[in-house]
């Protein structure tokens, strides 16, 4: 089967590439073995200090609501991190001291939202906190079951009963100016977080939970839907196992599910993520890229891969696939002419393109521009 461009990896980098190419009239296919890093997304796009209009247009086209307010965001542990471009339901503040009195609300049976950590962190900044746990009969059924109650299960219920939660919060509110809720709203219905904000007579801040991330899954679903509406193909659950290279160019890729039926294309984008997504793999001796065997930048001395002080910046996180200026993947030092590399598989080999989501978006756009100008 033939496409204009085949993208390996369906995370943020793969989806941004696919949507942009499809919009420009190309026929694209994304192939992805499993779900991706968006399932752990905080709601803030890292290293997006400036936001190109095309990125905003792409999000708007997919129905993803973002806002841009350089400042800080609240982490699930009650600390603060710099952030600028974020999903609309992720609050951004000019300084960590964003309120005077805060009501933190959680739900009985939900263990993935750490209210006391939050309170401790916020009190350190001089804000006073009160924690309330709501008992909702709708959640009791979940709680009594044998399974762990995770954010996504709560979110499915919340999409139905959020109005009731608003009423309960109104009854609980005393003199607090701010309410903090876990980010378990608007999984299917993106308007819910906004409507909660309208319904509660205080400022509402949604704080991140333990994974899976509800706003991240929502973002992934909207991007995937957008790709589909534009006529792009997303082959979920399939894995690129190797490539056929002819005359220094990728002719086609072989996948686990399609076997002898290769996927051919003029251009390929490798966006298979970092260690977490198995875009990079390790064994006791080396760090390698499993599909094309591209060159990887890393320290020969294994002892220098990591810093024994756990909290320090870990060298292995900087390692990534080597590319030329145009993001062509390098194989034994030589660029593969129609293969572009994008996203977190680059590690920190291209600091000019940023890190995290910023790197995914920018590198995808570099790859797309190259492909469209060919």
């Amino acid at each position, binding site marked *: 089967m033939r496409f204009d461009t085949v993208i390996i990896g369906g995370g943020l980098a793969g989806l941004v590439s696919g949507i942009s190419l499809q919009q420009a009239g190309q026929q694209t296919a994304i192939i992805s073995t*499993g*779900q991706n890093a968006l399932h752990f997304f905080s709601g803030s796009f890292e290293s997006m200090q400036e936001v190109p209009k095309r990125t905003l247009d792409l999000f708007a086209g997919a129905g993803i609501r973002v806002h841009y307010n350089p400042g800080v965001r609240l982490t699930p542990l009650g600390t603060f991190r710099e952030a600028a471009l974020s999903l609309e339901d992720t609050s951004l503040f000019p300084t960590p001291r964003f309120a005077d009195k805060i009501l933190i609300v959680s739900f009985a049976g939900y263990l993935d939202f750490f209210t006391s950590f939050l309170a401790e962190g916020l009190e350190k900044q001089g804000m006073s906190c009160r924690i309330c746990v709501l008992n909702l009969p709708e959640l009791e059924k979940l709680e009594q079951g044998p399974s762990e109650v995770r954010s996504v299960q709560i979110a499915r219920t919340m999409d139905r009963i959020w109005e009731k939660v608003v009423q309960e919060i109104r009854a609980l509110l005393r003199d607090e100016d701010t309410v903090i809720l876990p980010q378990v709203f608007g999984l299917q219905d993106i308007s819910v977080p906004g409507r909660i904000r309208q319904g509660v007579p205080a400022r509402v801040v949604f704080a991140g939970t333990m994974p899976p991330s509800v706003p991240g899954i929502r973002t992934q679903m909207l991007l995937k839907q957008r790709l589909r509406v534009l006529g792009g193909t997303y082959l979920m659950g399939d894995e690129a196992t190797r490539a056929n290279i002819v005359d220094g160019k990728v002719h086609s890729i072989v996948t686990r599910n399609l076997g002898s039926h290769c996927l051919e294309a003029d251009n390929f984008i490798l966006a298979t993520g970092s260690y977490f997504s198995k875009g990079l793999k390790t064994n006791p001796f080396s760090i390698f890229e499993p599909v094309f065997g591209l060159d990887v930048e890393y320290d020969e001395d294994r002892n220098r891969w990591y810093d024994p002080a756990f909290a320090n910046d870990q060298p292995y996180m900087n390692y990534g696939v080597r590319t030329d200026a145009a993001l062509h993947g390098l194989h034994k030092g030589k660029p593969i002419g129609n293969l572009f590399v994008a996203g977190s598989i680059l590690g920190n080999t291209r600091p000019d393109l940023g890190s995290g989501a910023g790197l995914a978006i920018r590198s995808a756009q570099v790859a797309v521009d190259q492909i469209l100008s060919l």
Partner: protein
Amino acid sequence: MKLQEYTESRHNFEECMKCTVCTAYCPVLQVNPLYPGPKQAGPDGERLRLKDPWFFNYALKYCMNCKRCEVACPSGVRVADLIQSARIRYDHTKPKLRDRILASTDLMGKLTRPVAPVVNGVTGLKIAKSAMDAMLKIDHRRTFPKYSGRSFEAWLRSHEKEQAAFPKQVAYFHGCYVNYNHPDLGKDLVKVLNALGVGVQLLDHEKCCGIAMITNGMSEQATRHAVHNIAVLKKAVVDKGLTVVTTSSSCTLTLREEYPNLLGVDNSAVHDSLLMATRYIYERLEAGAKFRFRTDFHKKIAYHVPCHMERLGWSIFSERLLRMIPGVEFTLLDSACCGIAGTYGFKKENYEASQAVGEPLFEQIRSVNPDIVACDCETCKWQIEMSTGYSVINPISILAQALAE
């Protein structure tokens, strides 16, 4: 580097990094509070079960084996295989009469075929349905698949000579559904393949693939069927050099993946020659074969990807064939489970959950309002037709309708 090969765990369960992504995609977990979910039932539970089988949880029976957890897992853990093989290893309760009846699709077919009109009448009757509900716990709200009077095998045998005259040949694993309930789908396949110059042969007596036996606690019978089927498939593939095509995504997944992974039956000699007919046809067209389509075919088609098709990763072939038909307005539905999962939804204790799982899909179908829902799975067909009233047709039959005479 061989180390990893030697340390690979059963169904890759040690690769689990506890990320909980699978729990977000399990349709049963969304609606059935008694089910522990893929992570707990799969890799978490496996660690405990290996210590002591006492930890086996009977609630694993609620898993419909839809494989959506596996498709979502970023670490390549074969979650559903873990759950089903734990049931095979540790659940020694005898399947109920009801489960045995539901699982024996070919036996039911053989027994009822000569009296098909009577059976269809009876299973359609209110009183029979409430009796089945009370005695067998088969939910009375279900509509039953109809049984056909003449089997597909008998029909194709009577056309053996004409089929043998075609220059190219394939063998067809038709499955119980085509044989007993819906021979027309088999006839449509013959028509479509003949249009490409390909003749269709039967296998030397296939048996039910056994998928329903696996999920209903009858793995020994399933293994016997697997051994038999692999033997007859080998005759076609190895001895005659034929490709074997299928029209059901669930039969295909069972023959290709469940036999080796769950039942331990080696299918390597035939694995790569077992193809969904849509893939086979697409590849013929890519190689230069051509269809002549009607010019007056106008249909709005919404394509539903069955769970097992999603796991096979071959929906793209059905999609491309349907899009190729002139006059088709095509919509790809969101990939979501319809809730029936083979015999799962027929059971009284699962009826509510089954319908709740399917609701988002039904809702989407109603909003698209197509002329036809296309789908490669017979049990999805029953579920969607019963729940939405839209008619559901296999892509092969749609192709057959669209071909010029």
